C-alpha cells in the first residue's frame, strides 16, 4: 500500500482527472439517450471512431486544426442523425434488450465499414498533437490536453445543466426521462425530445473524438470501443436512471482506471477490467439503481 501511495504523485492524479472527464462526457452521451429512449447505445464508441477518422483524414490533407474539428462534428452529427432515423426510430417499440442487440449490430456495421475504408492499421490524426506538450505548474508537468479535457468537460456540464434546468426543452427531457408516456399526454413532443437528446449525445461524441485523438493519435477501426465498454460499466455502476449518477459513474471509472493504471505495475493493472466488471455484476445484483442513485425507484434498469 505504501508503494501505491508513493506512486500516486500529483501528475498521475491530474492525468486521472483528465481521463475521468473524457469518460464522464461519454457517460453523459450514453445516459441522455438512455433517459429518453431506454436504449443503451452500444454503438456510441463507433460514433467517436468516425469522428476520429474525420480528424485523421483532415490531418492527412494538412487542413488547419479548426477545419478538422468542424469536419469531425459534421461527420459525427450526420451519423448520429442517421442512426436515430434508421436504427433507433424503427425499434422504439421494442424491448430494451432488442434495442441493445440492434445497436450491437450497428456497432459492428460501422466498425466493418471503417475497416474497409481505412484498413486495419488505421491513420494518425496529428493536427492537434501540440496539445500533448506539457506545461509546468510548480513541480508538476501537466499535458495541455489534460487541462483542455477538464475545461471542455466542465463547459459541457454547465451548459447541459443550464439546458436541462432552465429551458423548456430541458424540462421536457427531464419529464420524458421520468415517465415518457405521461409526459407525452401532457404535451411533450416526443420527436423533439428524442431528437434533442440524440443530437446532444452526438455533440458529446464528437468532442470526445477530438480529445481522445490528441491522447492516442493512431485511429483504428477499433478506436473508442474499449473506452465505450468501460464507460458502459461506469454508467451501470453509477446508475443509469439518473443522468447525474451516470455521469458520476463514468467520471469515477475513468478516474480510478487512470489512477490505478498509472500507479500499479502492469502485472496487476492488466486485471483491472475483471475487477471493474466484477463490480458491475455485484452492483446489478445488489443495487440495480447504481451506487450513486439517491433512492431506490420502482423501476429496475
Amino acid at each position, binding site marked *: 500500500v505504501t508503494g501505491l501511495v508513493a506512486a500516486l504523485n500529483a501528475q498521475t492524479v491530474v492525468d486521472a482527472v483528465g481521463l475521468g472527464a473524457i469518460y464522464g462526457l461519454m457517460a453523459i452521451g450514453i445516459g441522455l439517450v438512455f433517459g429518453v429512449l431506454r436504449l443503451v447505445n452500444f454503438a456510441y464508441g463507433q460514433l467517436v471512431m468516425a469522428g476520429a477518422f474525420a480528424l485523421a483524414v483532415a490531418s492527412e490533407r494538412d487542413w488547419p486544426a479548426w477545419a478538422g474539428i468542424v469536419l469531425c462534428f459534421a461527420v459525427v452529427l450526420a451519423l448520429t442523425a442517421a442512426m436515430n432515423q434508421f*436504427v433507433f426510430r424503427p425499434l422504439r417499440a421494442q424491448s430494451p*434488450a*432488442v434495442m441493445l442487440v440492434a445497436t450491437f449490430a450497428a456497432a459492428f456495421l460501422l466498425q466493418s465499414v471503417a475497416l*474497409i475504408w481505412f484498413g486495419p492499421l488505421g491513420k494518425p490524426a496529428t493536427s492537434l498533437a501540440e496539445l500533448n506538450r506539457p506545461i509546468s505548474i510548480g513541480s508538476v508537468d501537466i499535458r495541455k490536453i489534460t487541462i483542455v479535457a477538464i475545461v471542455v468537460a466542465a463547459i459541457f456540464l454547465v451548459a447541459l445543466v443550464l439546458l436541462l434546468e432552465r429551458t423548456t426543452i430541458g424540462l421536457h427531457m427531464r419529464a420524458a426521462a421520468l415517465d415518457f408516456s405521461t409526459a407525452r399526454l401532457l404535451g411533450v413532443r416526443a420527436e423533439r425530445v428524442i431528437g434533442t437528446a440524440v443530437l446532444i449525445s452526438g455533440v458529446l461524441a464528437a468532442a470526445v473524438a477530438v480529445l481522445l485523438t490528441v491522447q492516442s493519435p493512431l485511429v483504428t477501426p477499433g478506436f473508442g470501443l474499449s473506452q465505450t465498454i468501460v464507460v458502459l460499466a461506469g454508467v451501470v455502476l453509477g446508475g443509469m436512471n439518473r443522468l447525474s449518477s451516470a455521469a458520476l459513474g463514468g467520471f469515477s471509472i475513468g478516474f480510478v482506471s487512470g489512477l490505478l493504471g498509472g500507479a500499479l505495475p502492469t502485472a496487476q493493472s492488466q*486485471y483491472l477490467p475483471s475487477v471493474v466488471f466484477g463490480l458491475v455484476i455485484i452492483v*446489478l445484483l445488489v443495487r440495480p439503481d447504481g451506487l450513486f442513485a439517491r433512492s431506490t425507484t420502482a423501476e429496475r434498469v
Partner: protein
Amino acid sequence: VSTQNVERLVAPVALVVAAALLGSVFSRETEIYFITALLAVGFVVALYLFVGNSGVLSFGHASFVAVGAWAAGVLSVPVNEKSLIFSSLFPVLGEHSVGNVASLAVAAAVGGAYALFVGLPLMRLSGLTAGIATFAVLEITHNILRYWDRIGPGTNSFSSVPETTGLTQAAIGALIAIGVAFAYQTSRLGRQLRAVREDSAAARAVGIGVVRQRLWAFGLSGALAGLAGGLYVHFIPLSTEDVYLNLTFVTLAMLVIGGAGSLWGAVVGALAVSALDSFLAEAESGIGVGGVSVDFPSGSRLIVVGFLMALVLILRPSGITGGREFSLARMRGKETS
C-alpha cells in the same frame, strides 16, 4: 413422441447431415467452409437452448466457448511440447494430456460447470440487466484468459493442438447439440422454462422456480457451448480474440436472423449466414459470378451480416423462420411485467 415432434427433430438433423455430405464432395479448401458452418450450428444451438427457451438475453456465451476451448486445448497438446508452448502452466496441467474424445468431454464439463457457477447469481436477472451482466461475464473471462498464462497460452495463440475436427466431428458435434436442445425443449424442464418466458408471474404461481429453471438451461447451454469450443480449438489455432466480441456478435446475429424462437430457426440461421459468409469470403479474394468478376473488399462480410441483422430486427424481429413459438419481440412483455 408425436409425429409433429419427429418432424421438428428430423428437419434440423437432415439439414446438418446434408451440409456435411455436401461438404465431403468438394475439395479440401471448400471443406473448411462446411466445417465452419457446422461448428456455427453448435455455437448457435447452444445459445438458442438458453436464449430461445428462457427469453433472456445472453452476451456471455462466447465465454463458455472460450473456457471449453481452453480446457480442451491445454489438455490436448502433447506433454513433451507443453513446456515449449506454454511458459508457466500449472504443473498439473503441464504434466497431463488426454485424448481427443476425453478432451471434448472435459470441454463440455468445464463449459457447463462455469455456466452454472456464473448463472447461480445471474439467473434472477432479465431484460437489459441480464444483457449487461452477461456482457460483464464475457469481459471478465476474456480478461483472465488473456493474461493468466498459468492456465493457457495467454496473449499467444494455441499451437500443437491436434487438428482432429474435420467434417465428421463437426457434424457429430452439431447433431449432439441439436439432440440435447430438442430433448430439453420437449422435456418437462423445457416446458416449465418456456412457461416462465411467456408469463413469469403465472409460472411462479403454479410453483415453477424461475431461477432454478433458468439455471438448468444456462448450465446445459454452457456445456454445449463448451463442447463447441473444444471442437473449435481442435480446428484452428485459437487466441482469446477469436472467442470474444466477434464470435458473440456473429452467433447472436445468426440466432436473430434465423429466429430465436425455434431450434429450426437456430439451425437455419447458422447455416444460412455461414453460407453467405463463405460466399463473401470467396468474393473477397475475387470470384466469378456469371462471367462477371466480383471483387469485394475484405471486411465486407461483417458489414453484410450486421446489415442483415439490423434489417431482420427492424422488419421481421422473429427471424426468417418466423420462430413461431417465441420471438425476441415478446421479450418486451417480460420486461414490463
